[in-house]
């Protein structure tokens, strides 16, 4: 729910810990070089900064380097790697790495470290998802062979997002003291309050101009307050709060693939439970006509205008606008009449005169959950509730913490968000094998045709071929797919722009199209930031 002005930056352990020479921030007015930046952009990784456990899985892991990276236009470029080759069968990736990369403890980065990282990540499973890796081996100091158990067209993304950890310094507790070869080194982490990082003098790439970064972990309100008080140079704000001007700051809108939508439980409620004993299924949302009608009824433009203040665009699928988007899957929406038709065709009518539709004794009523501390999702939920009410569908919004959402998400629609440069996300969200895994396919969506297309897409050896299958998974020639025209597993609503208040003197270059949150996507180009005053 509302986290109001929370854990702030004031260091509380200072008296008890050895005196770190944490000096006062250096900020000069004209003439003096600014070497420290303060950012209120959220994204604390509560589990620590260990890439093998999922840190940086959306890219730019700050402390570590990755084999490949994306530039501002999202093209794949070399980072730690100097080049790579894929075998004809798509099973073996041979990567050559640079020889001048050094970890922050002075040890050189070798192929052995790369191999270790990939193997460790594969063992961990879960969030980093390198499970397709069979083995990683260093053939010499600067060459590593990544062997897959089956071809995976999206494996390149792993090379872009998996930060390389040192074999000699990795273990329990690494997450709080990460040694890496990235542009910054972790100086201090006061959990829940702030993260202080300093530039890595041995970084092989472009030395960042800013020697010290202070990330403060405050909530939406705290970020805005800090920006208004001139206490941070970069602050992320939700659209509704980006209404006013702040002296000395400009509002930067960064395009993103970050999206929001409502996840529908796909199965009817038959008493099934997941391995933890949480029930699965919802009698209302398991009905195809209901899901399609909801998709058709929602006025997405109104949501973009009203909730996002125009900082976004409508979305009818999870990958709108990306290269693997199937434009045919787009639907016409904001059409309550058509929605009413769909419902009537689906057998929904108000048989008992209570103003609500019903079918086979089930009334068209359900709860929608939204994360209580997220005002955008709250707004989307409430607006959609009002859009569906005239149709005779009674939706009850409920705010809850993620802890409370987790056991209920198999039976109750939830306003979730995703959005990645990695096509694997479609697989994670819609493949039947991913049912009940983490937060991915929480609705237990399962369609054999979609599964087939998703498998073919992952297994394709050629990106073009893969894209064709990705598009088929969305909607294929026979009318099957996971999008609103077909199975409508979700009601996708909008793509967000990420809004930042940025100090007028700070040039952040041209930020790349950002993925879904959790991390510091805007710092992807941090080495090119400049202070222009």
């Amino acid at each position, binding site marked *: *729910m*509302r*986290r*109001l*002005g929370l854990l702030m930056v004031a260091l509380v352990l200072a008296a008890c810990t050895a005196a770190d020479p944490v000096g006062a921030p250096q900020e000069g007015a004209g003439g003096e070089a600014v070497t420290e930046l303060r950012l209120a952009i959220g994204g604390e990784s509560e589990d620590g900064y260990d890439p093998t456990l999922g840190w940086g899985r959306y890219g730019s892991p700050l402390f570590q380097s990755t084999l490949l990276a994306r530039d501002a236009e999202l093209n794949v470029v070399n980072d730690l790697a100097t080049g790579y080759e894929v075998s004809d069968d798509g099973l073996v990736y041979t990567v050559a790495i640079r020889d001048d990369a050094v970890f922050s403890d002075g040890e050189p980065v070798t192929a052995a470290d790369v191999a270790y990282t990939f193997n460790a990540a594969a063992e961990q499973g879960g969030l980093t998802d390198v499970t397709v890796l069979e083995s990683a081996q260093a053939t010499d100091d600067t060459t590593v062979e990544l062997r897959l158990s089956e071809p995976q067209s999206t494996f390149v993304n792993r090379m872009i997002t998996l930060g390389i950890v040192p074999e000699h310094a990795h273990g329990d507790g690494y997450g709080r003291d990460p040694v890496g070869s990235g542009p910054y080194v972790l100086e201090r982490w006061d959990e829940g309050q702030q993260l202080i990082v300093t530039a890595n003098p041995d970084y092989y790439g472009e030395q960042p101009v800013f020697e010290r970064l202070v990330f403060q972990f405050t909530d*939406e*309100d705290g970020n*805005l*307050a800090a920006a*208004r008080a001139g206490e941070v140079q970069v602050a992320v704000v939700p659209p*509704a*709060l980006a*209404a*006013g001007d702040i002296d000395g700051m400009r509002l930067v809108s960064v395009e993103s693939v970050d999206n929001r939508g409502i996840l529908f439980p796909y199965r009817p409620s038959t008493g099934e439970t997941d391995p933890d004993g949480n029930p699965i299924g919802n009698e209302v949302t398991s009905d195809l006509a209901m899901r399609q009608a909801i998709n058709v009824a929602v006025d997405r433009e*109104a*949501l973009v*205008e*009203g*909730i996002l203040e125009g900082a976004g665009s409508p979305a009818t699928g999870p990958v709108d606008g990306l290269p693997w988007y199937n434009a045919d899957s787009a639907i016409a929406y904001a059409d309550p009449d058509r929605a009413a038709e769909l419902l009537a065709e689906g057998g929904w009518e108000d048989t008992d005169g209570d103003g609500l539709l019903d079918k086979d004794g089930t009334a068209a009523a359900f709860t929608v959950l939204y994360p*209580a501390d997220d*005002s955008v999702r*709250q*707004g989307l*939920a*409430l*607006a959609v509730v*009002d859009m569906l009410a005239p149709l005779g569908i009674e939706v009850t*919004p*409920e*705010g*809850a913490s993620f802890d409370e959402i987790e056991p209920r998400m198999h039976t109750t629609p939830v306003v979730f968000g995703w959005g990645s440069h990695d096509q694997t996300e479609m697989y994670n969200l819609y493949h039947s094998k991913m049912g009940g895994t983490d937060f991915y396919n929480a609705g237990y969506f399962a369609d054999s045709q979609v599964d087939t297309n998703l498998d073919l897409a992952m297994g394709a050896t050629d990106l073009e071929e893969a894209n064709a299958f990705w598009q088929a998974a969305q909607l294929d020639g026979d009318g099957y797919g996971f999008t609103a025209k077909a199975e409508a597993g979700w009601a996708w609503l909008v793509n967000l722009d990420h809004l930042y208040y940025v100090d007028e003197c700070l040039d952040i270059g041209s930020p790349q199209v950002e993925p879904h949150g959790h991390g510091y996507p805007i710092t992807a180009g941090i080495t090119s930031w400049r202070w222009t005053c």
Partner: protein
Amino acid sequence: MSAASDALGRLRGNPPQPVATEIAHRPLDRRRRTLVQIGAGTALIAAIVVAGTVLSASAELTDLTARRLPPSLAHPFGTDWLGRDMLARTLVGLRLSLAIGTLAATVSAVIALLLAAAAGALGRRVDTAVSWLVDLFLAIPHLVLLILIAFAAGRGARGVIIAVAVTHWPSLTRLLRGEARRVAASDYVAVAQRLGHGGWWVARRHLLAHLVPHFTVGLVLLFPHAILHEAALSFLGLGLSPHAPAIGIILSDAMRYLSAGAWWLAVLPGLALLTVVKAVDTVGENLRALADPHSVHE
């Protein structure tokens, strides 16, 4: 004028008497004023409850084209970030607060009455136990106890109601216990006991009857505290869903838009809450004046 005559009068043991000219200038005597205040307060509260009930649907209606409008004729309290009418929302919120406040105050007052009656009628050991229980509850700061209980009761609306209901009885218990002990030590109770009537009989016949007026007054006076504490818990985020119109939630929402200049989101609902609390308090204080004129001192 009065200071000297009052002082002299007090020395003689008489209460200050109004001089003839004073009577002529005073529009209402004290008793009538008390009754009028009780009536006005109750009427205000009733009006709010009715309004809140009638408007509950429109308070939730979002209107994305009318976001964050300042107060106007169409929207006397302005609108919020989803275009909801703030006046309707405030009234519904006040009704919610009053409902929770009533429930919580009643439960607390009943607990207090039972404990006090038991303390008075059932002998010294029960009395000591009750007194000790009161001390235990008063040992922790009230808000900390509320947070603890709200958390333990599973948060949400249920948690808030339970927390507020279960923590407001200590001070009333003390008061009622004092009264109960006085009654218990009085002559007619001694006579009743001499005649062979047992503890509970005494409690029912004499104690409760005597305690009821204090109980009623105490209940009404608990109200403001219950309302304010419910608002505080909602404000802190321990209560209802973030979109529920509880005044505390409305105010914590308002906090985010203050910097954007939307002052009406915080000032007006808070003022409304203040008015309601004051109204309830006025009714309570005046009821107490009626029930126990000795309690009224200048």
